[in-house]
């Protein structure tokens, strides 16, 4: 249990996928303009991350690792995740139209998102068990949500602010993103402090 807490804490705050590992920058900058769309996107990302981990972990452990084909993980994972997201979208459309209408727009965007691929690959780099991998994937999604919500708040402030002409639009957004990323560096060492070595 303690290990799961450590994983959650570190992946949400210390090793935040967006702000420390710089994965999933595209949706981070693209969809964070408004709060509601950024929350919807983050929930969809969390959902797909957990689902992708649940499928790729057994696939890797039972198929790829057994035959010594670890080097195939990227192409196999992309294939599996893309197919999975498509399948989930079709199923949601059929059985849960309400969820589909709120989440569905974001699903195709996530299909080959590097954050989703990243979480599945990093699970094995860190040597996580299945449970730990699921926790890691869930935490990564929540960390994404946190970053998105914070950043959409900042962006709304930027929209209202009187920004110099040179920095209007993307430059000011990128600078704000880098400052937010620096701020998250303040969390480093927190997990050791809270949970001990």
């Amino acid at each position, binding site marked *: 249990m303690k290990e799961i807490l450590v994983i959650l804490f570190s992946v949400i705050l210390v090793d935040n996928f967006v702000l420390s590992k710089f994965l999933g920058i595209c949706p981070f900058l693209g969809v964070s303009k408004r709060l509601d769309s950024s929350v919807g996107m983050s929930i969809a990302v969390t959902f797909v991350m957990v689902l992708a981990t649940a499928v790729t972990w057994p696939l890797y452990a039972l198929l790829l690792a057994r035959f010594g084909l670890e080097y*195939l993980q990227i192409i*196999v994972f992309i*294939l*599996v995740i893309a*197919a999975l997201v498509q399948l989930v979208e079709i199923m949601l*459309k059929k059985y849960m*139209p309400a969820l589909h209408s709120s989440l569905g727009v974001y699903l195709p965007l996530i299909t080959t998102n590097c954050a989703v691929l990243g979480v599945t690959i990093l699970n094995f780099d860190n040597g996580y068990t299945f449970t730990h991998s699921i926790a890691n994937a869930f935490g990564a999604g929540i960390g994404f949500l946190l970053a998105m919500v914070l950043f959409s708040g900042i962006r709304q402030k930027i929209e209202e602010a009187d920004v110099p002409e040179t920095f209007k639009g993307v430059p000011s957004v990128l600078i704000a993103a880098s400052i937010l990323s620096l701020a998250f560096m303040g969390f480093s060492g927190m997990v050791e402090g809270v949970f001990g070595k």
Partner: protein
Amino acid sequence: MTIALPIIIVSLIGLVAGIGLTLAAKYMAVSVDETAANINSVLPGANCGACGFAGCSDYASAVANNGAKANLCPVGGAEVAAKISTILGVEFVEGEKRYARVKCAGTFSKTRYVMTYRGMQSCAANKTFYRGRGACPKACLGYGDCVDVCDYGAIYMYHGIAVVDKNKCVACGLCVERCPNKLIEIANGNSSTFVRCSNNEKGSTTRVMCSVGCIACGRCAKICKFEAIEIKDNIAYIDQAKCRNCGMCIKECPVKVIRTYRDPNFPHHITPAVDPMVGETAQG
């Protein structure tokens, strides 16, 4: 064998995924409403919400399933309404053209500002100080928030007040929501005479603030033959349904606050020297 195994495994996964998706697409297919899809394709796709629905696709499905009217899209106008009617196979009813207009005529020469404001150049920001920079609390603040919000380039600033280009305006209502003083209203296309003031103060107070403010004298209400004008809250209201745009009130108004948009070409040929809405030549 070392090459064959990875190829077999990846192709197998691809095959399984492909077959799975094909089966899923076949057996879990949701019947897409064809009428709604067709209607959606002829809509302009501006997603402005002026029709009263949450966007173009929402409006399309409302037309197809819930019997919403075909002429609600102000952006597409009559052209789109005709196309939708064709898809539905019903008789075409022309959409009513509407437009936005600013109910303030207080240019630099008619009214004044009570502060020298150097803050953020937006009406909303200026409004948070005291009650805005205008001597009149219901004056156009002149920073052009409505100009910024307009997607169609239909609003421009003229001598410190916003003016709407009737021909470009699609009546989406974005400016109506944005204006902190609520000066902009959406009007029917055939109504052209209107009171260019929103000030509810007493006549004597208004007169001090602005030389073109409505002083609620009631002369327009008396002269109107169609009983279209009444005085409410110290301001004259013209009932768009009753007004025939005869122009009697325009002649009668002592402060010249009632104006008309009658010129069909207004205001394409505007020059700073002669503004048909502000200058004294506006009655034609």
